[in-house]
């Protein structure tokens, strides 16, 4: 073999190495895995606002179904967690106890300035009156009132739900309860109003009177309202639950395969968020240093818990999709006298709470009326991820959130606290047990692997059964493994690695299966990966197997 030929081989090897890297055939774990932040560094200056309405929502929902398969969520890191991004932010206490300050907008703004509000626009014909107004400091808010028939219902639901979604990690507009007199509102120059004929024209004092006549008024003459701070940036319209946004180069993961959008279904079940249309979302173009970024918000929190915004939530809300064959036929053939089980739960008789209950709540059966491609792709590992976050919202945090709604009726506050906690626990019992609920695995230098059983820790599963573990040495470069030793059994999630494995390997992998008489999901394997570092063994990977996975 001459030198020229060897040089050529070297060139080929270089090209192949580069192509392999370019094609993504690198090692399973990169040095910076697991990433905590998804690097979204492209300038999204080209993102343009887009139209949205009820009709376009329905059209998009019907036509944009996304891909049919349901792979592992694409935007999770190697520990199966969601890194911070323009979609999601891991708040303090995401998987442990939520600090109370996190639920009262903690570090955020202090709320609207005291003084006169200048109205920028209004909707006098809306069933739920609303205004856009500027406070004394010049900050713009949407001011939403309760309907006369249901004081505190919608404002209470919005105050609670927005805070909880914020705690759970989503971007939500900040809101504050306010109490207004008619004299606190001044119509701004050129402020339009949409009137009863669906026409937008200049607002007059009579329009404001008409608008306020539809708002619940307290005995002291003030109106209770919720002021929702408009997110800074350019409103780009709603996001969709499938596909990617064409004008955002950072948006590379199809939305139906984003973990936080799939897992949203669990949070919606908890809070009975039955209006999960794109219209209840908002993309905002923000300045981020010298580039622009599209940030994705959840909005529209007034139709949650027991609220249907203007009235109490309908019995259907959250319990059934539009078409289910058997109940439909039974209903049709029995002149409607067949009563679906979800209709039976009664209104607790608290006007400010509406129809929200825990006794009949079955998390797995909960369905939003609008089908979402992301919800359709949800997998047990997505549900586990979300359920763990729900369970992290402890009773103290729930108390703090409900207190923020400032209900006049103490019974309403008590009822909501209890119901939120009961539904939270119901979610934990179901969705923490559909996979093997081990997490936070640590491999000590002493070769002891310790995991936490989240379901047992959260008291939603008995610690019955056992765990079987198989150890492997792992070749990161080739993503291959070699069995070391035989399978061992333990009654608790604490295991010891075979002698010699840790001395000879840079990476160690363990596959764990559980066994529980009540929870078949525990049998699905969990793989954990550790990398040797100067400080010991670092957890770099975790994969949960779900039913149907190969």
């Amino acid at each position, binding site marked *: 073999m001459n030198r020229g030929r060897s040089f050529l081989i070297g060139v080929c090897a270089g090209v192949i190495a580069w192509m392999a890297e370019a094609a993504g055939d690198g090692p399973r774990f990169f040095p910076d895995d697991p990433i905590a932040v998804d690097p979204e560094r492209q300038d999204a200056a080209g993102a343009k606002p887009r139209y949205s309405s009820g009709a376009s929502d329905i059209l998009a929902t019907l036509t944009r179904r996304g891909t049919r398969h349901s792979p592992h969520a694409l935007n999770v890191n190697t520990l199966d967690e969601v890194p911070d991004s323009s979609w999601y932010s891991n708040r303090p206490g995401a998987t442990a106890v939520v600090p109370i300050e996190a639920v009262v907008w903690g570090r955020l703004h202090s709320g609207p300035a005291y003084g006169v509000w200048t109205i920028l626009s209004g909707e006098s014909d809306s069933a739920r009156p609303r205004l856009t107004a500027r406070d004394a400091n010049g900050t713009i808010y949407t001011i939403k009132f309760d309907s006369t028939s249901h004081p505190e219902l919608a404002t209470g639901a919005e105050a609670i739900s927005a805070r909880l979604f914020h705690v759970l990690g989503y971007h939500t507009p900040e809101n504050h309860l306010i109490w207004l007199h008619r004299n606190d509102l001044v119509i701004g120059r050129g402020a339009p109003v949409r009137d009863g004929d669906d026409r*937008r024209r200049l607002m007059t004092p009579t329009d404001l009177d008409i608008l306020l006549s539809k708002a619940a008024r307290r005995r002291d003459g003030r109106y209770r309202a919720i002021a929702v701070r408009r997110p800074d940036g350019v409103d780009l319209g709603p996001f969709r639950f499938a596909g990617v946004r064409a004008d955002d*180069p950072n948006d590379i993961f199809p939305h139906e395969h984003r973990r936080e959008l799939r897992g949203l279904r669990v949070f919606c079940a908890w809070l009975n968020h039955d209006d999960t249309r794109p219209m209840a979302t908002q993309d905002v173009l923000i300045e981020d240093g010298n580039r622009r970024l599209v940030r994705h918000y959840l909005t529209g929190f007034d139709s949650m818990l027991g609220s249907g915004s203007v009235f109490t939530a309908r019995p259907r809300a959250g319990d059934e999709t539009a078409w289910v064959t058997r109940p439909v036929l039974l209903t049709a053939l029995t002149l409607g006298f067949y009563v679906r089980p979800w209709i039976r739960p009664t209104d607790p008789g608290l006007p400010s709470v509406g129809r929200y209950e825990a006794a009949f709540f079955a998390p797995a059966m909960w369905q939003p009326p609008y089908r979402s491609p992301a919800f359709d792709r949800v997998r047990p590992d997505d549900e586990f991820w979300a359920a763990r976050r729900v369970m992290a919202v402890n009773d103290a945090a729930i108390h703090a959130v409900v207190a923020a709604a400032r209900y006049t009726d103490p019974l309403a506050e008590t009822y909501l606290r209890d119901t939120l906690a009961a539904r939270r626990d119901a979610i934990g019992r179901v969705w923490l047990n559909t996979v093997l609920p081990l997490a936070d695995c640590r491999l000590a230098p002493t070769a002891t692997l310790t995991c936490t059983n989240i379901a047992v820790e959260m008291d939603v599963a008995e610690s019955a059964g056992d765990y079987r573990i198989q150890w492997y040495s792992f070749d990161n470069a080739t993503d291959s493994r070699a069995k070391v030793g035989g399978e061992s059994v333990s009654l608790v999630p604490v295991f010891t690695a075979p002698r010699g494995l840790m001395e000879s390997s840079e990476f160690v992998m363990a596959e764990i299966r559980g066994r529980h008489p009540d929870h078949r999901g525990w049998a699905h394997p969990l793989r954990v990966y550790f990398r040797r570092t100067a400080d010991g063994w670092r957890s770099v990977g975790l994969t949960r197997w779900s039913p149907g996975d190969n």
Partner: protein
Amino acid sequence: MKLLIARVSGTLVIAALLPSGALAQPTRTAQLEGQRAERARSAPPAPKTFLDKIVLLVEDKWPQPKALAPEGTFYPRVGTVTVESGLAFGGGYRRSFANDTLRADAYGQLATRGYGVGRASLSLPRLAAHTLELQGVARYRRFPQEDYYGLGPLAQRSHRTNYLIEETDVSMQLAWRPRPWLLIASQIAWLQPRVAGGTDGDVASIETRFTEATAPGLTIPTTFFEQGALALVDYRDSPSHSHSGGRYAVYVSHYDDRHDRGFDFARVTAHVEQYVPVFDAKRVVAFRFAVNHAGAANGSRVPFYYTPTFGGGDSMRSLDDLRFRDASSWILTLEYRWEAITGVDLAVYHDRGGMAPRFESLSLADADDCVGLAVRLTTGRVIFARAEVSFLGREGVRGLIGFSAPLKLERFLR
């Protein structure tokens, strides 16, 4: 050794030629950044299906709502002019003045079967803190194929004819709505109807079978001055798809024959409609009772084209539209509806009603009956389509397809 050096040097040459960092230790961050950079360089993903393209077009190109409505707007009108008029197309123009204190509106519509309507109005809609509206209306309508079977409950189906009616009217209305559920209104109108033979070649024209004696007003044209008053209480939860609440209306009017050709008459209509939700508003019992009476003064008659009608989708549903006419009529409807699935209601109903030449001759016992089944498509707030089949009526089974809610109340204000 030399061979190894040659291979390494080849690799180094490639490394030097490739973008910097290409052979650096890869990271997840670099991998994701690379994908995004590639995404930024490449064209945006194209829509895969035709429907995707449509959605994108709607989202990207549809104009955002303007801050204020334009003062003047052209608009299309598609639908029907009246029952069995055929599909109608047209358009209009509306314009507001002085921040919508004054409104002008004009439209025209032509239907496939030759029906047509035109209307122009000028209104002050927001007087007295939006509770009072004053409106002037000029209207023209041309209905060329209206059915007429003769007067009275014994009119034979085989006597079906058709006629043309053209009507021009100019009216002034004052409507007061002190509460959202209460409307009190009065109107004066000048009406000029003209009747002629019908244009439906498949049915005999009216003059071939009826005379002035059997169809009053057929050959004697005249002009009317109408004075009417309306009281309406309407507290239904959703007017176009009601689940609870009620509607009660009384309309009284007097028609003065301006040419003294013997057609002075008065008209009274009373309408009661009630909706009772059963259990959770997914089941509703609907009740409707309506009485119509048109009575002429001594020596006068009621023109046949203004006599109350009986039969059709908003009356006795087992009968054809306009099947009977007489001075007095009543209709009672009892309906049970239930929601099968979101967007689809089912219903069973019983209609009972009758007519008579005099109000005191109306009898609850001597009446027509029918029962029926209905399927209705709804949006929750609106019934936008319905299919109904009526049985046991005196003229057999009859089906109908409609595009509005049943139990419609006659429009009194022009």
